[in-house]
């Protein structure tokens, strides 16, 4: 059950602003101690909590258009917290927090069965096929607030939950019960040079993320903003990442439609 005054952290990504620069990915790597290999060209084996897709409308020049779509974990709520990945984990190594809406991953609990990866349609869950090997000296640069993962466990975007914990600790020390909107921001949000990413509490009408996403709590968070959409909303995953685009083909690219419905096929 959702607690009274529960938060629901979420994100709005304005695809009209995203230039595909990849700063969000780099910031995420640095903040979350994401391992990489010397040859990381096979993206099906590499780990990136934030992945930027490159879409196009499939039309020839001069009608050709492109769009970059950053994809962090969607932190799905599903129906009453039953996100696709959480309910399937046999060892309770992943959790949906009703107080924050964050889907967490407990690395020392995960034994690497990969059922959650099979359950996630967004491919946000990635496996540590190797033990991390950091370039000489880089161990000194690792974020001490984030545990380094070992071979054989699944990991994914956590909405930089260590920052939330740090912000709460700070507020506690200062005698406050609540944190301000800008006290907890994810690394990708802060790194985006175009200001395409907005992060905050979707339940709080004063937060920018709420004002942009306009989530409808009676319809599982569906957006009332005509320019907003969520990825694969029809599956009932109830994600907390909202995308904005003024282009209809981009909005339609976020979900699957039958021919009888409007369908514009996007290409990656």
């Amino acid at each position: 059950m959702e607690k009274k005054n529960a938060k629901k952290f979420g994100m709005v990504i304005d695809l009209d602003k995203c230039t595909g620069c990849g700063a969000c990915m780099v910031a995420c790597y640095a903040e979350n101690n994401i391992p990489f290999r010397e040859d990381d060209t096979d993206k099906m084996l590499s780990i990136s909590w934030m992945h930027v897709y490159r879409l196009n409308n499939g039309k020839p020049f001069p009608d050709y258009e492109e769009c970059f779509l950053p994809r962090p974990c969607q932190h799905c709520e599903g129906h009453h917290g039953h996100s696709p990945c959480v309910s399937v984990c046999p060892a309770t190594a992943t959790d949906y927090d009703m107080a924050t809406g964050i889907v967490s991953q407990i690395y020392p609990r995960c034994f690497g069965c990969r059922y959650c990866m099979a359950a996630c349609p967004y491919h946000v869950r990635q496996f540590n096929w190797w033990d991390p090997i950091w370039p000489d000296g880089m161990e000194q640069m690792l974020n001490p607030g984030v545990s380094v993962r070992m071979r054989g466990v699944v990991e994914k975007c956590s909405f930089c939950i260590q920052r939330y914990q740090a912000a709460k600790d700070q507020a506690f020390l200062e005698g406050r019960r609540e944190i301000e909107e800008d006290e907890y921001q994810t690394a990708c949000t802060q790194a985006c040079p175009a200001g395409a990413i907005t992060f905050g509490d979707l339940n709080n009408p004063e937060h920018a993320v709420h004002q942009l996403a306009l989530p409808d709590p009676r319809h599982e968070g569906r957006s009332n903003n005509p320019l907003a959409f969520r990825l694969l909303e029809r599956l009932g995953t109830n994600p907390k990442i909202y995308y904005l685009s003024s282009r209809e083909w981009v909005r339609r690219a976020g979900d699957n439609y039958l021919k009888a419905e409007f369908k514009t096929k996007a290409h990656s």
Partner: protein
Amino acid sequence: MDSALIPKGVKRCPIWQFALWIGANGAVLAWGGFAMLLVYIKGLNQTNMNNAYGFALWIWADLAVIALGGGAFFTGFLRYIVGKDELKSIINYAVLIGFICYSSALMILGFDIGQPLRGWFIFWHANVHSMLTEVAFCLTCYFGVLTIEYIPMVLENRKLDKIPFFHNLSHNMHEIMAVFAATGVFLSFFHQGSLGGVPGVLFGRPFGFREGVLVWPWTFFLFTWSAAAFGPCFTIFITKITETITRKKLVKDNVIDLLAKISGWMIFFYIIAKIIDTVYWASVTAPSKGFTFWDFYSSNPGSAYGIWILIAELGVCGVLPALILITPKLRQTQSFLWLAVFLGVLGVCLNRWVMVLQVLAIPVLPFENWFAYLPSWQEIATTILPVAYGIILISVSYRYLPIFPQERELNPIDEPGTAAEAAEAEAQPGGSGPEPELSPAES
């Protein structure tokens, strides 16, 4: 050399021939063992799995062998609960095959996880909402049941049976075997079903997802049903292969005929249910998620996931074996019987393949493409490993244990001394008499 261990009244090949056979299979076993060692030491990077294919060849092999091993619980169900007495002549072999299948499944699960040393977390930190948790508990319990069912067979070895403790233990285990058979049926119903629930609950994967009753998707019931239907096909198939290799008739035709008939009707009704499920899924479930039926099948010529796979699963390997097995004249014709059980085995393996691999191959995000996967040699070797292990265990069991109670009756030996040996055996406590040996549960 080992004649003292061989059951009385039966003929076995010379020891050198047996050693060669075991040696050849042992070489394959060693190859698989080496690959397994690589996986344990170096990790899952030895496979060709990737972030799209978190489940691959091994999970398919797990699901397939568990379905094929379903012959054990279903034959036990028919024998002990329904009361089909004729099946006592094949129940031993069904149990042995089941034991091999389930021990193989557990072995594969052991190296399929990224952190094998944490494997016990599935029991310790169990998430009761996960289908995999239920699978782990029931699978382990049922393997225990199969072990208990297999032990009396081992104790019936000619030498072991002479030891009073083992003789009495075996006898007492027989007395309560029906309880274990019933427990096995109960456990199998749930873990076979939960394996079906593994893809069925994935509401983020429209190819696997199914509606259902309460927490159980339709695949839960279809998997249990298909294991019960096709499992006996595998029991018959392996029995026929054993008969061919040993060049002996080991089980009477009426026993095979009964099991084949029941299997045929089970497949027949299963296929009707499966077709209804497929039609409903294609016309209601998938469209509600924005997918058409054809979105799930690749149009690329030669694709592993073309529409051919559905036709093969439901038609060639479903309807066809069902029709053969429910038609008395056809199933009593050896060539048709062979064909039907082979297609049945293939059919259930195909079903498990699509419910594991195709679920992950299909792009769900509209801007992604089909995902390809080809197993590495380490994955192939470790998947063949259980086959070699199964052949070895069957060979050793067949040579030294009274697995087939009708063997002596069907293959009388005219050699001098056999009659005297048989009479002597009859006179000994615990010795096998001239009558066909009863199955462990019948003694």
